[in-house]
């Protein structure tokens, strides 16, 4: 048992590190660019091109698709090292991580030729258009319609929770093409031009204040049949490929989130009637609980990485991670804010730890929902890992347009 790279991994890491030391150096002295502004996009495009030219994009992709044909561990090693630099990351995560693999798995040769290389070198940015107001946990409840019209399809409907939609050039979209079929059977997936007439992306403001996502409205948007991904009616199967790629990401706590050390620091600074808060046993018990969650998830991810390193597919670690991380963030933040009394409630002071804790309290409420609610993830763990039977699904075999919810 060890935490070391294998010799092959170590060699790759050394190579990556050496390259990054030089290639990413220039970002160190640049001022921070906000995650969603033009400067950030410019820098991201530039950096993606640089990586592409050096052979560090599409690390796990087949060579035929312009990738490097390496293992997930290589990709993770690159990300780990990249994240230690100041280079801009994130803009291409969904496009290259989920959209383009779907495109090259299900698209026709022309489509692949047209979109994949351009995406890989960063020339075009992609988004994923799945969720809808009435299709969240139950993704197959999608209502956005696509109707055949000559060589085109005409799309009408609304998508939601689309990351970066306003910055994107293309997206992959799941639509309902046959409402007379049962819900999973009448779906079809397409590539859609985000600059096409009738596409409108609006920022979607969150409870926490920011607007990290979009709503996207489609009004008579035309898509050529050639941009279809998979067969007509196979949209659900195609969407599952996309979602499978999500599983390979080894998630965890959002970067820069407060953790048990934050709670230790906050507790050390608070003087109560009975002495420093850090000496109160209920505070200490809570620190222990937070450590168990924080470090337990990190260690669980190391187990997943070890499996990856051996060429195995990780299991339910992602689901475990999110169930634990999000609720733990909410509980820890509430506890620390309570401990900080008035200072935890005011939003204009109290130092950076309290700022992060307040943000964490707001954000965690969304994290418990995004990418699978706590409840859906528990279902997944129970059904896929423990083999328990699924909830009854009375609408499974009913034509979508005849289903009457019970």
């Amino acid at each position, binding site marked *: 048992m060890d935490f070391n790279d294998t010799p092959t991994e170590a060699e790759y890491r050394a190579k990556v590190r050496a390259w990054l030391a030089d290639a990413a150096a220039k970002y160190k002295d640049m001022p921070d660019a906000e995650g969603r502004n033009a400067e950030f996009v410019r820098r991201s495009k530039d950096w993606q091109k640089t990586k592409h030219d050096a052979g560090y994009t599409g690390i796990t992709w087949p060579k035929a698709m312009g990738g490097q044909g390496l293992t997930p561990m290589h990709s993770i090693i690159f990300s780990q090292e990249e994240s230690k630099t100041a280079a801009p990351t994130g803009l291409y995560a969904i496009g290259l991580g989920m959209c383009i693999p779907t495109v090259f798995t299900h698209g026709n040769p022309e489509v692949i030729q047209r979109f994949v290389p351009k995406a890989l070198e960063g020339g075009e940015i992609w988004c994923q258009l799945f969720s809808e107001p*009435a299709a969240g946990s*139950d993704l197959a409840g999608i209502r956005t319609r696509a109707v055949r019209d000559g060589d085109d399809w005409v799309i009408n409907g609304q998508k939601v929770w689309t990351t970066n939609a306003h910055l994107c050039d293309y997206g992959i979209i799941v639509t309902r093409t046959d409402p007379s079929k049962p819900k999973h059977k009448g779906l079809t997936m397409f590539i859609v031009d985000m600059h096409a007439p009738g596409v409108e992306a609006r920022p979607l403001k*969150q409870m926490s204040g920011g607007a990290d996502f979009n709503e996207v409205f489609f009004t008579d948007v035309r898509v050529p049949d050639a941009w279809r991904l998979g067969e007509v009616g196979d949209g659900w199967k195609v969407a599952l490929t996309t979602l499978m790629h999500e599983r390979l990401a080894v998630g965890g706590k959002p970067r820069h989130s407060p953790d048990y050390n934050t709670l230790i620091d906050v507790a050390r600074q608070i003087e109560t009637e009975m002495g420093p808060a850090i000496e109160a046993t209920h505070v200490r018990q809570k620190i222990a609980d937070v450590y168990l969650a924080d470090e337990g998830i990190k260690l669980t991810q190391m187990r997943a990485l070890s499996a990856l390193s051996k060429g195995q597919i990780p299991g339910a670690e992602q689901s475990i991670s999110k169930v634990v991380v999000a609720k733990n963030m909410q509980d820890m933040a509430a506890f620390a804010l309570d*401990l900080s009394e008035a200072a935890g*409630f*005011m939003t204009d002071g109290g130092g950076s730890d309290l700022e992060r804790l307040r943000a964490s309290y707001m954000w965690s*409420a969304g994290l418990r929902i995004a990418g699978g609610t706590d*409840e859906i993830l528990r279902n997944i763990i129970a059904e896929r890992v423990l083999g328990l039977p699924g909830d009854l699904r009375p609408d499974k075999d009913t034509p979508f347009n005849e289903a009457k919810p019970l």
Partner: protein
Amino acid sequence: MNFDFSDDAKALRDQARRFLDERAGAAVARKAMDGDAPYDAELWTSVVELGWTAARVPEAHGGIGLSAEEACVLAEEVGRSLIPVPFVSTLMATEALLLAGSEAQQARWLPGIADGSVIATIGWAEGDAASPATTRGVRAEGGRLSGTKVPVPDLQGARLAIVSAAGRDGPSLHLVDLEGPGITIEAAPTLDLVRRHGRLTLDGAAAEPLGDAAAFHAWLDRAAVLSAWEAIGTGTVAMEMAVAYAKERVAFGQKIGRYQGVKHKCADMYVKLELARAHAMHGAWAMATDAPELGQAAAAARVAALDALKFAAEENVQLHGGIGFTWESDCQFYYRRNRQIAFALGSRAWWADRLVRTLERRNARAA
């Protein structure tokens, strides 16, 4: 046995509920959030006209002289409604005057409170982490106060602030006329975007002591009962919102309310709120009858109500899924107000400890 509110209190509750259902609620709170006013002046006029500020003021001082039961039902209804007026602050200040005010102090302030011309508030917090019992930043010297209280709810627009200041036996309360010299009032942004808070800087401001340290603690108990009722009101509406959504939202062919993952969560909200209600009724009884159980009942009411509100506010967002996390959803009002009420009189842990201290003193007396 009649462990229930009086018919009079219930009638007042029903009247308040009708008024607030019509005039307040999340949409009005959203308007207040988007505006600049410290409170909704038009609604405040209506609240005064309904006699709520006069409710607890004795008839001799121009009020109606109702009991603590009526104060509790009003606190609950106001908690339900999110109404953006400084009622809870004024009510808590009224309780302090009733409890510890001299005849002169009562005569000076209560009539204005009753007729709505005086908005009052209470400030104990001092920005840095501190419980109600560890006031350090404000000191009284020769009838003058210096230091800063922040955040003080409903400060902007208030005429009277009752603030705690360090004394020999711990903090005690002081009356500060906010129109006097040596006073600076600024906005203090907080997690609650509807109920506004301020920063009160006192620079040798004239102040009158309002009772001693014991009175401060006796007031805390009464305020805790009122805040428990407010929390129960707010938490109950969060639960009702979650339940309504669970009856309507469909996933996988069923109303999500059919899933035990959802319905058990709703049941837990109800259980927590009912436990809190039982303790808060005990508090209302003890407050109305000046019973020796007040300390224990008040602490229990506050802790149970905070737990119930927190759970209902958090899980209401959760049950709504993505839509509940949007700015446009009303879920945020309960989520944020949950932090405001949690802060308002000192934290859950502080009150839980206070509860156990009260039980220990009781057991020691009984032994």
